[in-house]
C-alpha cells in the first residue's frame, strides 16, 4: 500500500512538510542538547548542531522525495503551471477550448447515435441470436408467412430454439367513454419465450390460450399500462374490450419491450383455428431464436432443407417458396447504417479540421514562447521536462474541450432525438461510461494530433535560435507547416461541402419531381378495424364504401377514396401477372407493382384517365383493373386498346381481372422511384384499415374535425387515427434524407467557417511577422496594392491548391454517396464547381482583411518599434 500512501502524500504536500520539519528539528534540538552538555554555550551548540546536520531544506526535500509519488507530483505541478499559463491568455484558451468542444462534441454526439443504434445489441437477452423470417416465391417480393407453415418450420428445423410470429392491426378499444385507437399484435405460440422476455407483471400466454375455445387473454405494454391504467399494479384480470371482444389482462410487459414497434399497446394470442390452416395465407412476420453457436448460414441451410421437404409434401402451395432469414437487428436499424456512417465521416472530418486549427494556434503560440523555452533550456531545464510541460498544457486544453464537448454532445443528442423521432433506438442514447471513454479517447487523439508537432518543434529549437533574433526580419519560411495545416482545413471543408451540396441538390431534384398526382389539399387518415372483419367481406366493403359516401357529402370535400398503401411513400409490392389471351392462352410473364384502390382514387388524386373507362368496385366474380401507361408501353405495346384484356395473378387464388382502362403514370412507390408498370385492383378495402384520402377545397387540416364528427356519427365505436395531410406524409417519407442533409450541411458550414478562421489567423500571422518588411517596402515607395497583392497571393495560392485537393478527395469518396442521391451524379460538375467557387470567395475574404491591414502599416512607426 506504500504507493497509495505516497499518492496521498503527493496531494497533501503541506502536511507532509510539517511532519518532516518536526522530525528534523527534533533531531537538531537533541544534537544541540548533547553539544551543550559537552560544555558549549546554548547559541554555539545550536549553530554547530545545524552545521553538522547540513542544509535543512535539502534534507527535507530528499526525505520528501522518498515519501511521494514522483511522476504524479510532476504531473500535478505541470497541470497547475499549465492552468496558470493558460489563464493568462484567456482569448487563446477560450478559442481553443470552444473549437475543441465543438469538434469533439459533434463527433461524440454522432458516435452516441451510432453506438445506440448500430453497435449495441438490441435490448433482449442474447439478441444476436434473433432473426426475422419471411418467405418469398419466385413471382413476388418477400411476404409474410402462413401460420401453419410457421408451425411446420418450428417443428421440423434443427437449428432454432423456437420460431414464432406476429402481425399487427389497429383497432379501437372501447372500454372507456370514447373509443381509443389501439395497436395490437397478434402473436403465434412461443412469442415471449423466443424473445427471452417475461412480463414485468403477470405471465405470458399458455398453450391453451392459443387453442380454439381456449380462454381469452391479453398482455399489455408498459406504455399502455401507464396511459390507460395509470400504472395500477392491480391491473391483472381487468378486461380490455377490443373490436367487440373482451379479454382479461394476464400480463404487463417490461418498458424496454416494444416490439414490433414502439407504438404497440397489447399482444393477443392468435388462436389456431380453421383459417390458420390455409397455406396460402400471408400473415406472420416470423421471428426465430437460433440455438447457441448456430450461424446464420447454418440456419438458412436448415430452413431451406425443411422448406424443400414441405414443397414435396404440399406441391401446390409450398413448392415455389423460399425462406428469407435476416438478423433482426438488420431489419430494425439496417436502413440507417449508411446515413449514420456518412454523418460520422462528416463529423470526423470536422474534428480533423478543428485539430489542425488548434495545432496551428498552438504552433503560433509556441513561436511566441520561443524565448521562454530557450531561457529555460539555458538554465538547465531538460528537453523532456519542457516537452512534458508543453504537452500537459495541450492536454489540459484537450481535456477541458472534451468535457465541454460532452455537454455539446448532450445538447446535440437531445436535438437529434426531437428531430428524428421515427429513427429506432434513438431513445437508447445515454451519456454513459462508453461515451465518456469515447470522448476521452478523442481528447487523446486530439492531444497527439495537435500537441506533438508544436512540442517537438519548440523543444528541438535549441539554444542556437534563441531570443537574439526576436523574429526580426525573418521571411516566413517557418510557417510552411501553418500553411499546410490551413490547406488541410480548406481541403476537408471542400470535401464536406461537396457531399452536403450533392445531397442538397438531390433533395431539390426530388422536390421538383412531378409525382403524376396532386398531393396538395388531400387529407389522409385511417379508421380502426381488424382482420376478423374479413369473415364478412361484403360487410367490410359496405362499411368502407358508406364512409366514403358520407365523407364526400361533407361541405368542402371534393372527392374521397381509399387505398391500401399511401401514394408517394416508399412501399412496394411486386406481383407477377399473366396475360390471359383468347382461350386461356398463357402469355408472357409480366411483373408489375400491385396496388389496391377504390375507383375514386384516380379522381381524388387527379390522375388522368387516358383510355377506356374507370373500373367498377370489385364484385364477387368480376374483378376490374386499371393499368398505367408504363404497363401498357412495356407489356401491351402495339395493341389498339388495353381495355378488355384479362390479367391473372397465378400466386393468388382469385379469378383473372379485366382491364377497364389506362391511367397516367404515378410515382406510387416514392418520389425517388420512376413509375414502373403498375396494376390497380379496384377494391375499397384489401385490408381492414385502408388509408382514406379526402380532397378538400381549402386547407386539409381545417376539415379534420368535421371528418371525425361525421365518422363518429356513422360508427361511434371506431377510432380515427394517423391523420396527416398527404403532402406531410410524403415529406415525412424523406425525413431521414432531409435530416442527414441538414446535419451534413451544418457540419460542412462549421468546417468552412473554422477553416476561414484558420486562414485568417495564418495570414494575420504572416502579416505581423513581416510588418517591418512591409513597412520598409512602403517607405521605399512600394504601392499599397502591391503589399496587399503579395499577401493575397500567398493566401489564395494555398486556398486554390487546397480546393483542388478537396475536389480530388470528394471525387474519390463520391462512391459512398451514390446510393443516397436522386437525379444528381456524384460527380455533378455544377455542384462541385459551385462549391469550389464558394470556398474561393469566402477564403478570399478571409485573407483580404489581414492582407489589407498590412498595407496600412505606418512605415515610420513600424520601423521604430523594434
Amino acid at each position, binding site marked *: 500500500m506504500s504507493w497509495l500512501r505516497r499518492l496521498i502524500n503527493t496531494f497533501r504536500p503541506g502536511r507532509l512538510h510539517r511532519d518532516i520539519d518536526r522530525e528534523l528539528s527534533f533531531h537538531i534540538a537533541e544534537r544541540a542538547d*548533547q553539544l551543550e552538555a559537552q560544555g558549549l554555550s546554548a547559541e554555539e551548540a545550536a549553530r554547530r548542531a545545524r552545521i553538522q546536520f547540513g542544509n535543512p531544506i535539502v534534507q527535507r526535500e530528499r526525505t520528501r522525495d*522518498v515519501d511521494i509519488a514522483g511522476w504524479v507530483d510532476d504531473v500535478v505541478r505541470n497541470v497547475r503551471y499549465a492552468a496558470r499559463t493558460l489563464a493568462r491568455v484567456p482569448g487563446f484558451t477560450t478559442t481553443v477550448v470552444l473549437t475543441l468542444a465543438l469538434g469533439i462534441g459533434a463527433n461524440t454526439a454522432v458516435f452516441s447515435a451510432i453506438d445506440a443504434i448500430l453497435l449495441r445489441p438490441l435490448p433482449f437477452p442474447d439478441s444476436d441470436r434473433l432473426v426475422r423470417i419471411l418467405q418469398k416465391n419466385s413471382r413476388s417480393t418477400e411476404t409474410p408467412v402462413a401460420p401453419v407453415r410457421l408451425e411446420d418450420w418450428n417443428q421440423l428445423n434443427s437449428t432454432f430454439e423456437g420460431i414464432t410470429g406476429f402481425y399487427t392491426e389497429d383497432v379501437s378499444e372501447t372500454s372507456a367513454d370514447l373509443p381509443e385507437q389501439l395497436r395490437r399484435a397478434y402473436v403465434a405460440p412461443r412469442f415471449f419465450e423466443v424473445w427471452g422476455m417475461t412480463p414485468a407483471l403477470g405471465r405470458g400466454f399458455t398453450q391453451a390460450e392459443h387453442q380454439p375455445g381456449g380462454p381469452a387473454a391479453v398482455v399489455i405494454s408498459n406504455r399502455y399500462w401507464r396511459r390507460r391504467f395509470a400504472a395500477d399494479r392491480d391491473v391483472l384480470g381487468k378486461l380490455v374490450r377490443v373490436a367487440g371482444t373482451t379479454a382479461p389482462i394476464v400480463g404487463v410487459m417490461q418498458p424496454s419491450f416494444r416490439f414490433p414497434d414502439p407504438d404497440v399497446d397489447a399482444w393477443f394470442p392468435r388462436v389456431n383455428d380453421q383459417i390458420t390452416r390455409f397455406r396460402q395465407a400471408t400473415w406472420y412476420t416470423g421471428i426465430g431464436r437460433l440455438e447457441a453457436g448456430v450461424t446464420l448460414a447454418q440456419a438458412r441451410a436448415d430452413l431451406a432443407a425443411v422448406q424443400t421437404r414441405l414443397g414435396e409434401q404440399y406441391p401446390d402451395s409450398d413448392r415455389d417458396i423460399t425462406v428469407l432469414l435476416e438478423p433482426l437487428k438488420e431489419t430494425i436499424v439496417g436502413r440507417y447504417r449508411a446515413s449514420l456512417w456518412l454523418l460520422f465521416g462528416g463529423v470526423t472530418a470536422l474534428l480533423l479540421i478543428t485539430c489542425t486549427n488548434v495545432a496551428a494556434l498552438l504552433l503560433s503560440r509556441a513561436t511566441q514562447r520561443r524565448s521562454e523555452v530557450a531561457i529555460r533550456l539555458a538554465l538547465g531545464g531538460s528537453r523532456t521536462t519542457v516537452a512534458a510541460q508543453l504537452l500537459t498544457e495541450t492536454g489540459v486544453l484537450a481535456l477541458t474541450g472534451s468535457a465541454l464537448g460532452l455537454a455539446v454532445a448532450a445538447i446535440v443528442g437531445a436535438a437529434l432525438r426531437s428531430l428524428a423521432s421515427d429513427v429506432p433506438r434513438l431513445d437508447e442514447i445515454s451519456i454513459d461510461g462508453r461515451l465518456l471513454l469515447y470522448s476521452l479517447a478523442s481528447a487523446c487523439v486530439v492531444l497527439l494530433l495537435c500537441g506533438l508537432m508544436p512540442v517537438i518543434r519548440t523543444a528541438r529549437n535549441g539554444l542556437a535560435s534563441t531570443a537574439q533574433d526576436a523574429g526580426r526580419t525573418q521571411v516566413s519560411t517557418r510557417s510552411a507547416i501553418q500553411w499546410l495545416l490551413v490547406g488541410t482545413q480548406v481541403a476537408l471543408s471542400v470535401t464536406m461541402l461537396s457531399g452536403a451540396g450533392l445531397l442538397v441538390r438531390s433533395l431539390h431534384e426530388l422536390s421538383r419531381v412531378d409525382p403524376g398526382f396532386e398531393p396538395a389539399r388531400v387529407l389522409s387518415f385511417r379508421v380502426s378495424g381488424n382482420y376478423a372483419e374479413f369473415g364478412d367481406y361484403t360487410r367490410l366493403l359496405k362499411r368502407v364504401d358508406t364512409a366514403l359516401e358520407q365523407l364526400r357529402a361533407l361541405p368542402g370535400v371534393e372527392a374521397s377514396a381509399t387505398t391500401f398503401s399511401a401514394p408517394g411513400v416508399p412501399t412496394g409490392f411486386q406481383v407477377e401477372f399473366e396475360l390471359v389471351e383468347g382461350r386461356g392462352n398463357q402469355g408472357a410473364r409480366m411483373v408489375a407493382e400491385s396496388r389496391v384502390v377504390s375507383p375514386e382514387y384516380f379522381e381524388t388524386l387527379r390522375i388522368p384517365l387516358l383510355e377506356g373507362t374507370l373500373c367498377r368496385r370489385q364484385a364477387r366474380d368480376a374483378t376490374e383493373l386499371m393499368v398505367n401507361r408504363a404497363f401498357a408501353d412495356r407489356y401491351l405495346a402495339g395493341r389498339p386498346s388495353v381495355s378488355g384484356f384479362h390479367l391473372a395473378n397465378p400466386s393468388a387464388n382469385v379469378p383473372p381481372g379485366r382491364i377497364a382502362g389506362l391511367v397516367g403514370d404515378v410515382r406510387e412507390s416514392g418520389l425517388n422511384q420512376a413509375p414502373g408498370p403498375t396494376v390497380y385492383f379496384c377494391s375499397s378495402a384489401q385490408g381492414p384499415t385502408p388509408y382514406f384520402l379526402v380532397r378538400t377545397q381549402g386547407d386539409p387540416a381545417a376539415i379534420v374535425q368535421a371528418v371525425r364528427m361525421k365518422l363518429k356519427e356513422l360508427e361511434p365505436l371506431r377510432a380515427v387515427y394517423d391523420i396527416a395531410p398527404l403532402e406531410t406524409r410524403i415529406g415525412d417519407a424523406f425525413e431521414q434524407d432531409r435530416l442527414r442533409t441538414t446535419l451534413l450541411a451544418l457540419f460542412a458550414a462549421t468546417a468552412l467557417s473554422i477553416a476561414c478562421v484558420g486562414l485568417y489567423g495564418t495570414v494575420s500571422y504572416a502579416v505581423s511577422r513581416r510588418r517591418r518588411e512591409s513597412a520598409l517596402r512602403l517607405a521605399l515607395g512600394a504601392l499599397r496594392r502591391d503589399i496587399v497583392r503579395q499577401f493575397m497571393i500567398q493566401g489564395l495560392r494555398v486556398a486554390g491548391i487546397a480546393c483542388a485537393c478537396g475536389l480530388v478527395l470528394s471525387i474519390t469518396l463520391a462512391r459512398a454517396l451514390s446510393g443516397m442521391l436522386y437525379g444528381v451524379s456524384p460527380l455533378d460538375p455544377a455542384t462541385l464547381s459551385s462549391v469550389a467557387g464558394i470556398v474561393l470567395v469566402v477564403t478570399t475574404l478571409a485573407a483580404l482583411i489581414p492582407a489589407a491591414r498590412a498595407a496600412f502599416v505606418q512605415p515610420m512607426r513600424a520601423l521604430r518599434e523594434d
Partner: protein
Amino acid sequence: MSASKNDILQGTLTLLVLKSLATSKRMHGYAITTHVQRVSADLLRVEEGSLYPALHRMEQQGWLKSEWGLTEKNREARFYSLTARGRKQLALEEESWARFTEGVGRVLRYV
C-alpha cells in the same frame, strides 16, 4: 567530524538501522545515531543527512512503522519500530553482510 570516524558504507545503513531497532523496542532517529555510535565504540557514525531519507524509504517498504510520541524530555519525536517484514529483512541483510565480509576477508588474506 574527525576523519578517523568511519562514514558508513552505503547500503550498510539499512542493516544498522534494522539491527538497532531489533535490540530495542522503539527509537527515534536521533537515538539511532547515538546508539550506533555508542555500540560501535565511536568507530561508526551515521551521516545525519542520509538517515531520514533511509528511514522514510524503509517505512514505505513496510520494514518499519512509525508513530509520534514524547521523549523523557517531553519533546515530540517520531519513534520507529520494526515490523515482521523488517525482521525478515534484517535476517537477509545480516546474512548477506556476513558473506560480504567473509569475501572481503578472504581477498585480504590471500597472499
